C-alpha cells in the first residue's frame, strides 16, 4: 500500500486505527464464510465525519472501499476480494438516544444488535429483528443485509423498523433520510433503497429504528418428531390454522445432535426433527392457548412429544441452542455453505423433500434448520474446502437447491443477502430486467464503482466453478 495513503488515513482516524501491519491485514480479510482476501489497509473511524473523509481519500486514490460491521455475514458481502480499504464501523458503537415519547431508538452503525435490544427492553420497549448472530452482529450490518431472524415471522424484518438513516455516499457527501416518524409518503422511498444494499450504494453510519412495546409474556414449546416430513407438514398446518406464532423454528436430527454436543440443552437426540414454537403477547392465557393449539396440531401430525418450557431459564436455553446451530455445524466438517432460501409457506414440505433428494444425489451431508414458519430455510452443505472433488459436488448441490427453491416460487436469500455466494444466480432469480435496473441504480449512486465493487451482481464468469473461483489465502479454492 502506498505510504501517502496510510498517513492521510492516520490523519483522519488516528494512527492506532489504521490497520496495515501484515497480521492486521489478515484480521480484516474474512467474514463468516470460508472466503478470504487481504485488503490493502483497514481503518476504524469513530464518526460519520471520519467515514466521509475516508471515503473521499479512497476516491482520490482510486481505492475500493468495503464497509463492515462485525463481518459475521454469511454471503461474502464484506470480503475485500480485490483489495482496497476495509472500513470497520465497529467503533460507531454509541446508542445516541432512546426516545420513549416517539418510541424509537437512534444508534451508531456499530452498536451490537443484542446490546441495543437489551437497552430498549430495560424501558419496556422491543426491537424484534433477531438474527441468530445478534450477540455479535451490528445494527449497521443488519441494515446492510436487511437481516431477519426467528421473530420476523410475526414482527417483520429490519426494513420494517428503519425510519431514519445517515448514509455516506460514494461522493463523500452525507445524506440524511427519514426521521422520528413512521409514516412517509414523500417522494421515492430512498431509505428502503439502502436497506439490504450490502454496502454497494452507500455506507450507513447511523440508524433510527421504530420500536414497539415489549410483549409481557412469552410461552415457548418444543415438538419432536420421528420423521422430518411430519414436522414440515405441521408447519404448513399451523400457518394455515389462523394462528400467527411469534416464532416457528425447525431443526433436523443432525442439527439437534450437533447443538446438544455443545450445550447439553436437553433436546431429544433420538428425534429426526424438532419444532420450536413460541407465542408472545400481553395476555398469558391467550399466548398459552395458541401454543397449546400448535402443540395439538403437531400431535395430530404424529409428534413424538410436545413440551412447554417451564421456566425462563429453560426457554433461554432452548433459544441459546437454536442460535448456536449454524456455527456448531463446524463440529462435523471444517467448512459449510449456509444457504438461505425462501419458499411459499405451503411449499415447505416439498422444499425439505427436495433438499433430502439433493443431498443423496451429490452424496453430501446437508442438515436443514431455519425459520420454517415464514418459509425461510437454511440448508447447510458441509464439506472440506481442501477436497477438490467435494467442492465441485457442493457447487452442484447449491445450484440444485437454488433451482428447487425458484421452481417452488421462492427466492435465493431471505436474510443473508447475495454478496459473492449467490451473485451468479441473481439473474435466474430476478430476471434480466430487474438486474438491469439494479445496475442503473448502482451506477447513478456510485458511478466509479468505489463502494464494495463486484458484490451482488453477476460477474459474467457463469455458474460453473462459482465456489472454486472465490478467494482464499491459498489462492482460489482447489477445484
Amino acid at each position, binding site marked *: 500500500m502506498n505510504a501517502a495513503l496510510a498517513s492521510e488515513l492516520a490523519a483522519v482516524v488516528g494512527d492506532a*486505527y489504521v*490497520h496495515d*501491519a*501484515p*497480521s*492486521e491485514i*489478515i*484480521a*480484516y*480479510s*474474512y*467474514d*463468516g*464464510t*470460508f472466503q*478470504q482476501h487481504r485488503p490493502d489497509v*483497514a481503518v*476504524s473511524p469513530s464518526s460519520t465525519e471520519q467515514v466521509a473523509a475516508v471515503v473521499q481519500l479512497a476516491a482520490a486514490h482510486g481505492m475500493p472501499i468495503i464497509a463492515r460491521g*462485525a*463481518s*459475521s455475514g454469511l454471503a461474502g458481502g464484506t470480503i475485500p476480494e480485490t483489495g482496497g480499504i476495509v472500513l*470497520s464501523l*465497529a*467503533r460507531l*458503537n454509541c446508542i445516541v438516544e432512546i426516545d420513549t415519547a416517539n418510541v424509537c431508538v437512534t444508534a451508531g452503525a*456499530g452498536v*451490537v444488535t*443484542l*446490546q441495543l435490544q437489551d437497552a430498549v427492553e430495560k424501558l419496556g420497549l422491543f426491537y424484534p429483528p433477531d438474527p441468530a*448472530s445478534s*450477540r*455479535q*452482529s451490528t445494527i449497521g450490518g443488519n441494515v446492510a443485509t436487511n437481516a431477519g431472524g426467528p421473530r420476523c415471522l410475526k414482527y417483520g424484518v429490519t426494513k420494517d423498523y428503519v425510519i431514519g438513516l445517515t448514509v455516506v455516499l460514494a461522493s463523500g457527501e452525507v445524506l440524511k433520510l427519514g426521521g422520528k416518524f413512521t409514516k412517509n409518503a414523500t417522494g421515492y422511498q430512498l431509505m428502503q433503497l439502502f436497506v439490504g444494499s450490502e454496502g454497494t450504494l452507500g455506507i450507513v453510519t447511523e440508524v433510527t429504528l421504530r420500536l414497539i412495546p415489549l410483549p409481557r409474556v412469552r410461552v415457548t414449546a418444543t415438538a419432536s418428531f420421528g420423521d422430518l416430513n411430519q414436522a414440515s407438514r405441521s408447519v404448513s398446518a399451523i400457518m394455515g390454522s389462523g394462528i400467527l406464532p411469534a416464532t416457528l423454528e425447525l431443526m433436523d436430527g443432525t442439527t439437534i445432535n450437533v*447443538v446438544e*454436543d*455443545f450445550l447439553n440443552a436437553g433436546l431429544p437426540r433420538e428425534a429426526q426433527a424438532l419444532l420450536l414454537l413460541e407465542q408472545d403477547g400481553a395476555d398469558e392465557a391467550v399466548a398459552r392457548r395458541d401454543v397449546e393449539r400448535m402443540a395439538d396440531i403437531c400431535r395430530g401430525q404424529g409428534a413424538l412429544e410436545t413440551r412447554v418450557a417451564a421456566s425462563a431459564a429453560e426457554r433461554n436455553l432452548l433459544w441459546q441452542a437454536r442460535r*448456536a*446451530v*449454524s*456455527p*456448531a*455445524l*463446524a*463440529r462435523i466438517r*471444517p*467448512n*459449510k455453505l449456509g444457504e438461505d432460501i425462501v419458499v411459499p409457506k405451503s411449499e415447505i414440505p416439498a422444499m425439505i423433500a427436495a433438499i433430502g433428494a439433493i443431498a443423496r444425489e451429490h452424496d453430501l451431508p446437508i442438515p436443514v434448520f431455519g425459520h420454517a414458519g415464514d418459509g425461510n430455510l437454511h440448508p447447510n452443505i458441509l464439506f472440506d474446502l481442501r477436497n477438490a472433488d467435494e467442492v465441485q459436488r457442493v457447487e452442484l448441490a447449491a445450484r440444485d437447491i437454488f433451482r428447487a427453491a425458484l421452481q417452488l416460487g421462492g427466492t435465493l436469500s431471505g436474510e443473508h443477502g447475495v454478496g459473492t455466494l449467490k451473485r451468479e444466480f441473481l439473474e435466474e432469480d430476478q430476471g434480466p430486467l430487474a438486474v438491469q435496473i439494479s445496475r442503473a441504480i448502482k451506477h447513478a449512486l456510485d458511478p466509479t464503482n468505489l463502494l464494495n465493487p463486484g458484490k451482488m451482481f453477476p460477474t459474467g464468469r457463469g455458474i460453473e466453478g462459482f465456489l472454486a473461483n472465490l478467494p482464499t*489465502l*491459498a489462492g482460489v479454492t482447489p477445484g
Partner: protein
Amino acid sequence: MLRCIRCAACLTSCPTYVLTQKEEEGPRGRIAIMRAVVEGHLDITPDALQHLDSCLLCDACSHVCPSGVEMERLGVAFREVASDQRPRRPPLAERAAMGWVFGDLGNFRSVAGLLRFYQRSGLQWLARHLGLLGLLRLRDMERFLPRLPGRFVVPRGQIQGAGDRAEVFAGCIMSTAFADTTEQTCGVLAAFGCETRLTQGQVCCGALQLHAGEAERARELARRNIAAFGEGSGPIVTNAAGCGAMLKHYGQLLPEDPAAATFSARVKDVSELLAARQPTRPPREVKAKVVLQDACHLLHAQRVDEAPRRLLRAIPGLELLDLPERDICCGSAGIYNLLHPETGEALRARKCSNILGTGAELVVTGNPGCLLQLRSGLPEAVQVRHIVDILAEAYLPPSSSA
C-alpha cells in the same frame, strides 16, 4: 484451529476486543493470524506477536464458542512455537532463575521470605522513597505485592479433620502470600466433613511458565505434582482458580502419560467440592451486600458457575447481587497486568466501575490474581476477600478465623 468458522460469536466476550473494537485484538482475528502463520501465509512478525501476546488467555471466547475452539490451548501452543523467534527473549540467566524459584516450593518460600523481610525491615520504605523501584523497573510489580503474612503453609503431609479424604494443593502464591486462606481452606473442608491432607512433594502448578511459552518447564512441574499426588485417589482440592484450570489440563499437557489424565480428573476447585457436599445453614451470619467476581479460570476455563453462588446464598445475612459484565476479565490474568499494564489497568477500571455501580460492600472471588487486582483498584470501603475466608467466617468458630 480449523474449527473456527469465523462466526464472530466470540467478539463481544473478549476483553481486549471490547476495549478496542479491533479485529486483530479479538479471538477470531488471533486465530486467523495463527492459522495464516501455520499455513505459511504470514511470518511471525512483531505485530503478530503483539496481538497474540495481548490475549489474556482468559478463555471467555472458548466458553461461548459454538464450534468448540479451545483458545487457551491454541494460544499456549503458539507461544511455545513462537518463543524461539522473539526479538527480546528473556536472557538465559533470568529464565534459569525463574526455573529455580518456581521449580521448588522451598525455593519459592525462601524468596517470599526475603520479600517479607524487605516489607518489614524498612527496606520497602527506603526503596520506595529513593525511587530505586522506578530505576529497576519494578514499580508495577512491587505495587501489586500483597503484605506477606508471618508464616507460610509448608505441605508436609499434615492431616486435619475426619471424613472423606481431600488432598489440598497449596500452590506457590496461596501457600505464601495467602497462607491464612490456605489454612482456612483445610478448616472449612474439615467443617464440611473432609479429612484434609497437605500432600508432601507438591510444587507450583506451572501455569505461569506455560502462559509464558515455557511449556517444557511446565511439563516438568506437572510430572512432579502427578508423582506427589500419585498414591491417592480422592479429590485434589485447590483454592486458586488459575491453579485449578492448569491442574485440570495436565491430561492435555502430557497426553502420552495416562496418569496425567487420572490426576486431572481428580482436581476440584474448593467451591466445587464444598457445593457438592450440600452446604447446611452455617452457624454464623455474614451481613453484607456481596458481588461475586467470577475468576476467568474458574468460570471460563473450568466452567464452574453455580457452585460459588450456591455456597454464598446459603449464608444468612449475605445478599448476593448481580454484577454486570461478570464474564469479562478483571485484567489480572496471572501476571498479565505486569506485562501489559495499560490493558490491565483499563480492564481493572471497567471492572471496578461495574462493582461500584452495584453498591456492593464486599467482593468475593476464588483467585489470588483477582484479589490483588481488585484490591489495588477499589476504595478501602469495599473489601475484596477470598470465598474461603467468607465461608470460614460463617462456618468456623471465631477463634480459628483469621
